[in-house]
């Protein structure tokens, strides 16, 4: 079992003819993902490595029964691409694009609430169910099939923690990068709830970072709703207030909300051990299993 994606997921790549889109489509196919179509307005009828290209997402859904899309469209057009995906009945949209204007995402967020589609991202590495499917840019070779779920706001930090797990022979059910932007589709809580309901997920890693209050809310959710054990990591303990640490969402406000300390305390209060190093997170997971 897994959450959100598996080998039945039929993927359409939005922006398949662009440099990033083409490169990562090849990587996804190589990993075994079932990429059934791509879109690129004006290039309908062409193909990329034999994958048919359509002008619109609705054609791709109609002709190839796509169930999920991955968005590799530049930031200026990304919100439009997500709206297009939401207006079909896809189950899942994964937006990789970094730098989508926040007010665009507020409008997307409103539309999202009226649909049954799940959005992951934007500004995220995507999602992988090891051995079955990868939607996004995560390096497939560091993952291994197993029983640990992982949800993270950061891409490369995810890779670090996954490699700490895989090196010990601890595999993963599904790993999700939810993205580092202020407004995102899938939250920690959405992912945690899905892992809780997945019979194969025996433990969960949650990697948060400074900024916002999502980790505090997730801690509350864990305390009230989860039996599956969770171990945490919070990046940004040494970040000074008022400075944006790369991610648009990673900023401690002047009034002191969004600090690592507040998040670590909330997680500890919820019974979640928080590692001082990524390797310590793997120690905690090993203890759970």
């Amino acid at each position, binding site marked *: 079992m897994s959450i959100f994606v598996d080998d039945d997921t039929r993927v359409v790549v939005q922006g398949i003819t662009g440099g990033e889109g083409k490169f990562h489509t090849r990587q996804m196919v190589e990993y075994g993902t079932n990429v059934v179509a791509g879109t690129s307005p004006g290039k309908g009828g062409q193909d990329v490595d034999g994958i048919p290209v359509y002008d619109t997402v609705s054609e791709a859904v109609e002709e190839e029964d796509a169930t999920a899309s991955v968005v590799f469209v530049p*930031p*200026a057009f990304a919100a439009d691409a997500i709206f297009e995906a939401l207006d079909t009945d896809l189950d899942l949209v994964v937006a990789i694009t970094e*730098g*989508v*204007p*926040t*007010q*665009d*995402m*507020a*409008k997307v*967020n*409103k*539309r999202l609430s009226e649909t049954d589609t799940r959005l992951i991202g934007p500004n995220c*590495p995507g999602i992988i169910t090891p051995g079955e499917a990868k939607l996004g*840019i*995560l*390096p497939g070779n*560091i993952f291994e099939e197993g029983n640990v779920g992982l949800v*993270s*706001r*950061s*891409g*490369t*930090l*995810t*890779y*670090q923690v996954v*490699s700490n797990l895989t090196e010990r022979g601890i595999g993963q059910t599904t790993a999700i990068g939810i993205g*580092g932007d*202020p*407004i995102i589709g899938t939250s920690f809580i959405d992912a945690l709830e899905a892992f809780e309901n997945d019979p194969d997920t025996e433990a969960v890693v949650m*990697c948060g*970072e*400074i900024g*916002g*209050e*999502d980790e505090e*809310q997730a801690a509350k959710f864990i305390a009230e709703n989860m039996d599956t054990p969770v171990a945490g*990591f919070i*990046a*940004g*303990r*040494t*970040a*000074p207030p008022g*400075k*944006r*640490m*790369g*991610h*648009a969402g*990673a900023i401690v406000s*002047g*009034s002191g909300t969004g600090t*690592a300390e507040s998040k670590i305390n909330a997680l500890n209060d919820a019974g979640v051990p928080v590692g*001082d*190093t*990524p*390797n310590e997170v793997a120690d905690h997971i090993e203890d759970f299993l």
Partner: protein
Amino acid sequence: MKLHEYQAKNIFAEAGIPVPESRLASSVDEVMEAVEDIGYPAAIKAQVHVGGRGKAGGIKIAMDEDEARQAAEDILGMDLKGYTVEKVLVEAGVDFENELYVGITMDRSEGKPVAMVSTEGGVNIEEVAEENPDAIAREHIDPAFGLHPYQARKVVFEAGIPRDVAFDVASFLSTLYDLYEANDASDIEINPVMITSDRDVVAADAVMNIDDDALFRHDDLAAMEEDSYEDELEAKAGEYGFDYVRLSGNTGIIGNGAGLVMTTLDLVDYYGGTPANFLDIGGGAKAERVANALDMVFSDENVDSVVFNIFGGITRGDEVAKGINEALEQFDEIPKPVVVRLAGTNAKEGMEILNTDLVQVEATLEDAVQRAVENAKEVSQ
């Protein structure tokens, strides 16, 4: 991107929001010319991107010529929390009876903009929010429809704004939301909004920040950006296009991806060192970018040791290794010890070409950080 008060007020005035008469000045003579036209009392206000200007001495009220000259001499050229004051706004004093707070920002947890109104203007609103949260009325805005007029009235009435000016404040708020949306602002805040003795509503201050990710569609706003880096290195990072934050420690840090770079900083601290900076080379960096990053960190005189931590997803280890070699081979003597840790995509290929005469190599993040911290301690002794 932060706008200066004078820039935001120009935008407000064009949209029909009343602001006090004002002039921008960058010398004492210009200040004196401005006050002659505007009259007394006049406010002399430093135009720098710093909160709490007033408390820090960046705002003074002048009642006559001598005071105006003194204020101009004091403020122009002064250092306000690391920024040098080069411009002041000379503004007509407002004879006010009430001070209000009005703001619009993005509520991350709701994924919606929120309008905020309070009768407790003129003071630090974050303190009000903490000590007396009920003093701030809030109304969430559906971004698909914008702020409905009824919502503007509702939040104004809820805040307890005096009835005779309530409609004026509500229409003021509606205009602000239009500006917030049209300019892709991340925040707009007017603190205080003054109610004058004639019961007019005037924007006495103006904070307006623009979403950096939306600047591509606002050439007019992008052109207003003034270099306001706190130091030369941050300016250099801007040129190279790095996400960079300078800190006060002596272990330089370079990595890829915000979360992993933050983690590397945290580990430097955890192992007893002090981080000198946050530097994210971003995804898919090529050799030249890697070399630029090393150049940046080497030119920070506080740095005694460097840790280079790459976990490649779309970034390739061999490109990184090439960049490190190129950057270091130009030196007769390596200026500061560099510890490198490569993992992920093409890490093996990278390790093969990395010139290990020039760098120290560690296999894990923890070992790399500990070694860099030790190096920093040795060098600084």
